[in-house]
């Protein structure tokens, strides 16, 4: 019998549906961190991201009997995640309401850490804040696509599938988002 690591997502999902808890463990090890970072990068709120991660895997567990192995597991999982993310946006009306630019916590934490660090690490922390901030200024749909493509490594066909868009429309939105980011990050030096 092949080890869990060698099994495909779809095989693991079927095993989990049949009651094999180890299959869930393997799936969580593959995707838990990815989904968590999707929430974290989209919301910049640690606690909310943790709650959403829990909710996402609970929904996956509850809906697993409806899963068909012909469908891509990644699309299934990220569709649940994106639905949760959108519910979260809706709860707060606008994303800007959940993200308070005045909130000094991330900056202070990063700078507090960086005080003991060399100059280039301080620059990295600055760059991280600038990129995070620039990402938050994007419209939610553009940010979602960039996050799914850049950080989750999904193809535009998969992204289109998850967000109910054509791959071309997803590419266009990503292009517009990157164009905005180029402007927002133009002030950074070339090395960064």
């Amino acid at each position: 019998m092949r080890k869990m690591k060698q099994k495909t997502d779809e095989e693991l999902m079927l095993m989990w549906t049949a009651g094999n808890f180890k299959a869930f463990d393997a799936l969580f090890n593959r995707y838990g961190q990815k989904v968590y970072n999707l929430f974290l990068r989209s919301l910049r709120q640690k606690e909310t991201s943790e709650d959403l991660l829990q909710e996402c895997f609970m929904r996956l567990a509850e809906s697993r009997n409806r899963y068909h192995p012909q469908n891509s597991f990644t699309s299934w999982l990220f569709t649940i995640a994106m639905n949760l993310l959108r519910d979260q946006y809706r709860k707060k009306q606008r994303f800007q309401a959940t993200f308070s630019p005045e909130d000094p916590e991330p900056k202070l934490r990063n700078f507090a850490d960086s005080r003991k660090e060399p100059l280039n690490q301080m620059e990295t922390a600055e760059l991280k804040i600038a990129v995070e901030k620039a990402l938050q200024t994007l419209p939610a749909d553009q940010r979602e696509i960039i996050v799914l493509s850049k950080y989750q490594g999904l193809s535009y066909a998969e992204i289109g599938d998850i967000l109910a868009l054509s791959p071309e429309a997803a590419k266009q939105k990503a292009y517009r988002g990157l164009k905005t980011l180029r402007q927002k990050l133009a002030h950074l030096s070339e090395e960064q």
Partner: protein
Amino acid sequence: MTCEDINRLLVSFLAHDLSPKQEKQFRKHLAGCASCARETAEFETVWRRLDAVPEETVPLPTKETIYDRIYRLDSKFTKTVAIDLWYSLKKTIKPLAPLFMGLLTTIIFAFSLSFRTDLKLISPLGLTIAGGLWTGLFTLVYYLFSMGGNMRELSWRFLAQATLIAVGIFLLITAFSPLPHAVRFCSRFQFTQPFMERLSLGGTYFLFGTLYSLIPMTVGAYFCASRWGNKPILRGSIAGAMFMLLLTPGIFLQCAPFALGIVLGWFGGALVGSVVGGVLGFWARIHFAKNY
């Protein structure tokens, strides 16, 4: 590859989402086009800068909570043999659902008819044929209903839906006022008696047969027409014909004691009422419903 193509494929290039052939052509264009090369370089910088946001690991307490919740859910719902059996049974019986529903509806109809029809007058063979035909027709309509359908196209699903609603209403009406009872009542009622005397018994059954199918079919079609946009005559006729087919065994079981003229009048009325009701319902909804 043109500059426009480069623009279109740029994000795929950054995400390594291009085929080797496309990537080769992409790079070839960049080598000969300074403006595209500059724009690509700028986007590559932005793409690289996005790496500045590092990936964080899931906090251990969160991971433990998730595992705990899922383990509890699993032990509650899927760790029992009974639940496993239920799921496999559900999967197996799903394709048989239209047959099951068809059989169930036939039994309900036959049961409701058995109280007021002398079924002894029908031969066992006739009863078997009527029951089998009825089950088959209901199964077919439930099967059509279980199929997917586009709301804007001629969809069998919604035609079947209209038919089943009409059947439900018909069942209710006939349960409270069976057609032969209504005919008898109107023949004795002082206001309707003179009119009924002018009609032959066959004509009376034609009239009542028409009304008894026209009302349910009009209502059923009206409620389902909101899903459609046009062709009321075609849709109404198809749904009406399906409704009539479903009524046929029921009429057959009820009309055993009657003369041929009455039977023909009843069937004729039901056919006219079904088709006219279907067309009328769809047409009315299309033309009068404000939210259409």
